[in-house]
């Protein structure tokens, strides 16, 4: 971890486990032994299929879900489990979330003015009414909306506009860390870039750190600095974005990458799709752990599998050289 030692760890997830109790599946483990770090100023993407536990991890960080094991450290301070009132407020101030469905995540009966100032009211982040108005106007302008929208209701907006309201409401809190839970998957393809550019703009202006959740690798390729791949509640591979796309090692990552369509019909036709073999993971589940197979490239494996993966890397490197 030579490179990363210089970076400041903002969020440290250690052996985190989230368990749901309900009558059907007793003690269903949605997240199993998650370990990863998010460094200050980077965009960390968590990619996985529906039900893989990516949203559950995000909600555990922001304290919407309880953890059953492990520790979540934000700036070195434990933020999971029981906390004092001040600590809870500190987490709410510093970690904010952008939700997946902009239609569902805004209060339909409240004006945009209230939606955006909700955090300001809760934390008394304004001196007087004029100061609050100014802050709301600023927040609206920063996401490309107009101050005249304040008296409007969420249902009067388009999907992209609503998502920008959602971003403005998170940004007005001036957080350090933002969790974006599939912020563009409910949006029209034509306005996805607009929202991603807006998020990038805020990242540059305010030095934010993002955790970006997606189910589609093609989206995060240009947006994320590092990518974690999660499957069935287990993180199977973590690597830098370029590294992951050039050297996908874990079989699940490889099958995910295959699912990204190529804009060339000839290649698409010749593509042989390999389905991911779940049994393999089941075999390694007991003995395996997240291990560094290349510098800054971690995969979930057991010791016996190491030669197999190393052979794969050698093969890929040979292929890349040619």
């Amino acid at each position, binding site marked *: 971890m030579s490179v990363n030692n210089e970076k400041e760890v903002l969020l440290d997830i250690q052996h985190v486990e989230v368990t749901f109790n309900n009558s059907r599946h007793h003690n269903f483990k949605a997240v199993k032994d998650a370990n990863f770090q998010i460094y200050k100023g980077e965009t960390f993407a968590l990619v996985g299929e529906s039900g893989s536990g990516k949203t559950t991890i995000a*909600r555990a960080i*922001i304290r*919407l879900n309880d953890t059953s094991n492990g520790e979540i450290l934000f700036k070195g301070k434990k933020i999971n489990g029981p906390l004092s009132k001040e600590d*809870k*407020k500190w987490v*709410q*101030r510093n970690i*904010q*979330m952008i*939700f*997946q*469905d902009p239609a*569902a*995540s*805004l*209060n*339909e*009966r*409240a004006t945009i003015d*209230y939606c955006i100032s*909700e*955090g300001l009211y*809760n*934390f008394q982040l304004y001196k007087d009414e004029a100061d609050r108005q100014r802050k709301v106007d600023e927040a609206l302008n920063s996401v*490309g*909306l*107009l101050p*005249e*929208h304040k*008296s*409007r*209701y969420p*249902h*009067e*907006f388009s999907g992209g*506009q609503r998502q920008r309201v*959602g971003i403005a*409401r998170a940004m007005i*809190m001036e957080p350090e860390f933002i969790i974006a839970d599939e912020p563009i998957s409910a949006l029209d393809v034509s306005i996805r870039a607009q929202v991603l550019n807006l998020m990038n703009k805020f990242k540059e202006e305010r030095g934010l750190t993002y955790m970006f959740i997606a189910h589609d690798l093609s989206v995060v390729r240009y947006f994320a600095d590092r990518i974690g791949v999660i499957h069935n509640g287990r993180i199977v591979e973590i690597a830098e974005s370029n590294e992951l796309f050039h050297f996908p090692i874990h079989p699940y990552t490889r099958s995910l990458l295959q699912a990204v369509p190529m804009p060339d019909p000839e290649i698409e036709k010749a593509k042989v799709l390999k389905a991911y073999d779940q049994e393999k993971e089941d075999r390694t589940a007991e003995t395996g752990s997240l291990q560094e197979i290349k510098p800054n490239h971690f995969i979930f494996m057991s010791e016996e599998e190491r030669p197999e993966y190393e052979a794969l890397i050698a093969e890929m490197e040979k292929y890349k050289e040619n």
Partner: protein
Amino acid sequence: MTELNQDLFEIEIADDSESEHISAPQYSYWRSVFRRFFSSKLAIFMMILSGIVILLAIFQPMISGYDPNVTPNINRPEMKYIRPNATYWFGTDDVGNSLFDAVWKGTATSLFISFMATAITTVLGVAVGMWWGFSKRVDTVMIEVYNIVSNIPATLIAMILVYAIGGGVWQLIFALSVTSWVSTAYFIRVQVMIIRDREYNLASRCLGTPTWKIITHNILPYLVSVIMTSISRDVPSFISYEVFLSFIGVGLGQQYASLGRMIQQYSPYMTSTPYLFWIPVAISALISVSLYIVGQTLADASDPRTHMI
């Protein structure tokens, strides 16, 4: 054909904010509710009708000063059982009092009982229901209370209570609302549980909004139409319930005038002097139906899904 030249064109500067502009007129929730409500002719008619009934019930007894215990004409047979005419609009009753005065006094009592019982049921039911929907600990207790209360016939409880504490107006209000709020609370609890974990409430929690503020700003506004429906069902049902209890003889005592008392008292006259029986029945039905339709239309109008166009 005119020649194309420079003068025909002008430079237009693209303005991104132009596309953000919303041209639709300002939306206001309550204005839309009233617009929607007043678009129904039947509802306007019923509202005027119930308005007249309520005003008559409030002011007519003040003018007439009717008291069922004061019977100046009891020994004048010529004053009894006069059919409705220009002087006595609803005729006179078995003790020679004007039925018009008696009916409005009775309506006032019945409406008062029904409105009070509805108010208690709604306020208590909504408050407890909100708490019930949010707290697991309250849920474990309240669900047992609900199971017990909903399995004992409400009529039985009301009857026993009226026997035990007497047949006054306040006693009857107490007897009617002592258990009815539990079912309203249960109804609200289910609604709260449905919308409690919706994403916009999670978003509010992430923004640090305390639970009471989530209830007042996020949940209650969504339940306006549900609460309106419950009120519009409760008012007529309490009127009928008062009539029913008085009719079977466990409602108000002899000294009170109420629609239920009158219907019970005059049911033997159904064939001899039918107006004595049918006028209170008609008034009771009129109030129930008109208030129910007004309430239901208001409940529909307060659902924002009906506000489109």
